[in-house]
């Protein structure tokens, strides 16, 4: 679906460090992270809470920029981009699926899915058409007129996936997407993600659940802001 030249990964992090100013001193969010993710990959990021998972996710999702090191998407560095440029980058390249859904309540499912297209400047009719297409893909065409606060958790997360994919991003970033779902809805959601990946979408799944991580092509482990080997990870977790 998305053809990348060989040897040129979709995402590339080199020595990425993120520091936070917090009260008295600095808190290390990420420390010297090197990571490459190719187009079409399905990568799981695992780590205990406070390990830097969210920081990594924010940087991958262009919600935040590294303190030092470089992060490139399709060979373009995000360093020094203004917040407006980052917004455009998110709009074009990244689709988010959050644990707490982050849908606009009191807006219809269709309106929610349209949201990225509004900011992409897509005309109204085309917007509605593409959003409906995307809702159909997650099996919620008949719920397009429902307000999102009327939907079940599983349905909400499927709306969120439709929204994430509506502008054909390069990367789908899912942050504990099953965290607020029951087991069955969680299973269904993982099926959808796997299916999307099979059809060519690059997926990065942030989770602390090894069962979910097993669905990915590969898993990176993060502890105290550093990427570690699986052995080291198991050692630390005991």
């Amino acid at each position, binding site marked *: 679906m998305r053809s990348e030249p060989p040897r040129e990964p979709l995402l590339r992090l080199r020595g990425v460090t993120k520091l936070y100013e917090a009260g008295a001193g600095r808190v290390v969010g990420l420390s010297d992270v090197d990571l490459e993710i190719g187009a079409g990959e399905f990568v799981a990021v695992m780590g205990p809470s406070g390990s830097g998972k969210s920081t990594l996710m924010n940087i991958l999702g262009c*919600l935040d920029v590294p303190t030092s090191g470089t992060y490139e998407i399709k060979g373009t560095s995000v360093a020094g981009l203004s917040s407006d440029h980052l*917004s455009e980058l998110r709009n074009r390249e990244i689709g988010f699926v959050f644990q707490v859904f*982050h*849908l*606009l309540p009191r807006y219809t499912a269709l309106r929610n899915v349209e949201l990225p297209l509004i900011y992409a*400047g897509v*005309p109204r009719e085309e917007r509605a058409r593409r959003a409906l297409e995307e809702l159909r893909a997650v099996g919620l065409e008949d719920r397009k007129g429902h307000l999102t606060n009327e939907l079940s958790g599983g349905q909400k997360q499927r709306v969120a996936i439709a929204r994430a994919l509506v502008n054909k991003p390069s990367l789908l970033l899912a942050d504990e997407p099953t965290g607020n779902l029951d087991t069955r809805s969680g299973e269904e959601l993982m099926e959808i993600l796997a299916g999307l990946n099979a059809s060519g979408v690059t997926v990065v799944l942030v989770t602390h659940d090894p069962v979910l991580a097993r669905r990915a092509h590969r898993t990176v482990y993060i502890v105290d802001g550093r990427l570690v080997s699986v052995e080291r990870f198991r050692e630390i977790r005991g």
Partner: protein
Amino acid sequence: MTRINFVEVAFDSLRINRLRSALTMLGVIIGVAAVILLVSLGQGTKNYVEEQFAGLGSNILIVTPGKIETKGGPPIIGSARHKLTLNDSRILEKKGYLFAGVAPVVFGTAEVRYQNRSRNISVLGVTPAFQDVRNLHVEIGSFLGEADVESRRRVCVLGRTVKRELFGNANALGQTVKVAGTLFRVVGIMEKKGISLAIDIDDLVFVPVRTAQELFDIDGLFEILISVRNTNDLDSGKELATSLLKRAHNRNEDFTITNQAAILSSLYTILDTLTYVLGGIAAISLLVGGIGIMNIMLVTVKERTNEIGIRKAVGARNRDILLQFLFESTALATAGGIAGILAGVAGAWALKLLVPKLPVSIPAWSILLSFTFSAFVGVFFGVYPAKKAASLNPIEALRYE
């Protein structure tokens, strides 16, 4: 490619939060309605006064006895040391080449009785010139004539109200009434005129000026009314009258000449100022309404932090958020302004129905001004909350619950 429809986004948001939108608008609605209503009230007052003075004409000079040192008003009653006389009036009439008419007036109150009905009424002693100078005319019969004045005849002309009160529907012409115990023959009935200068013109009795002097036992005059031929000659007419009367009074300026138009114009200035002051006070409430918008928008930004985070995550730029919130506040203020105009106009109409005497009128400028002001208020008080919303950090905004 950046054809962001922030208008659509803003309207979506306003529609979804109908109650909040309506309550926010209320402040502006009340403010604008108050501006329009109060300005209309001020304008109505001015119209009322104008109507009252309209019959008087703008070409009138009023000569009253006595001189006061401070300028700008008629002398206090009873302060006159030297009287105005019919002779003065005659001099003005004979030598006042700028004057269309000179009308000496004697004023008193007397009991007027017909059969068993009696009333206490103001009695004016006048000459035939009074008709044209004050623009008051007889409807039935005739007005007082020169001969009536010279011979001190006991004839009278009744105002409409007096006629109705004393005679009802019966014919009054040729009947005799008792004025302060003296018999007077009714020679005419005045046309209906209404209230002017807080005096009910219809509730007067007119008698020849000399007869009135005799009746009230006075030899002076209450005032002399002069109508000037040409309105442009009001000032020179005043000078002429002054020099003529000074000569007649041994060079003493023991009288006062008032230019009615000048007093009116300063009165109108006061009334205009009153209108502006009322409008200004109302504008303060509009300002408060604007602050209400800012207040709600600030609360809204806080409350919708998560929404802002979501919008930014999916690609909204700072400018998109800024314009959305700015447009929301402007739309609220403008819609509130329009609703306020409707409410204000409706209120002014209601006032007109309730108080028919007050000719309430809505000046177009008050509508234009309050609308512009409310739109301005929306932009002005929307900028700060909108900037605040736009500058939110998306990560923190997403985390906010």
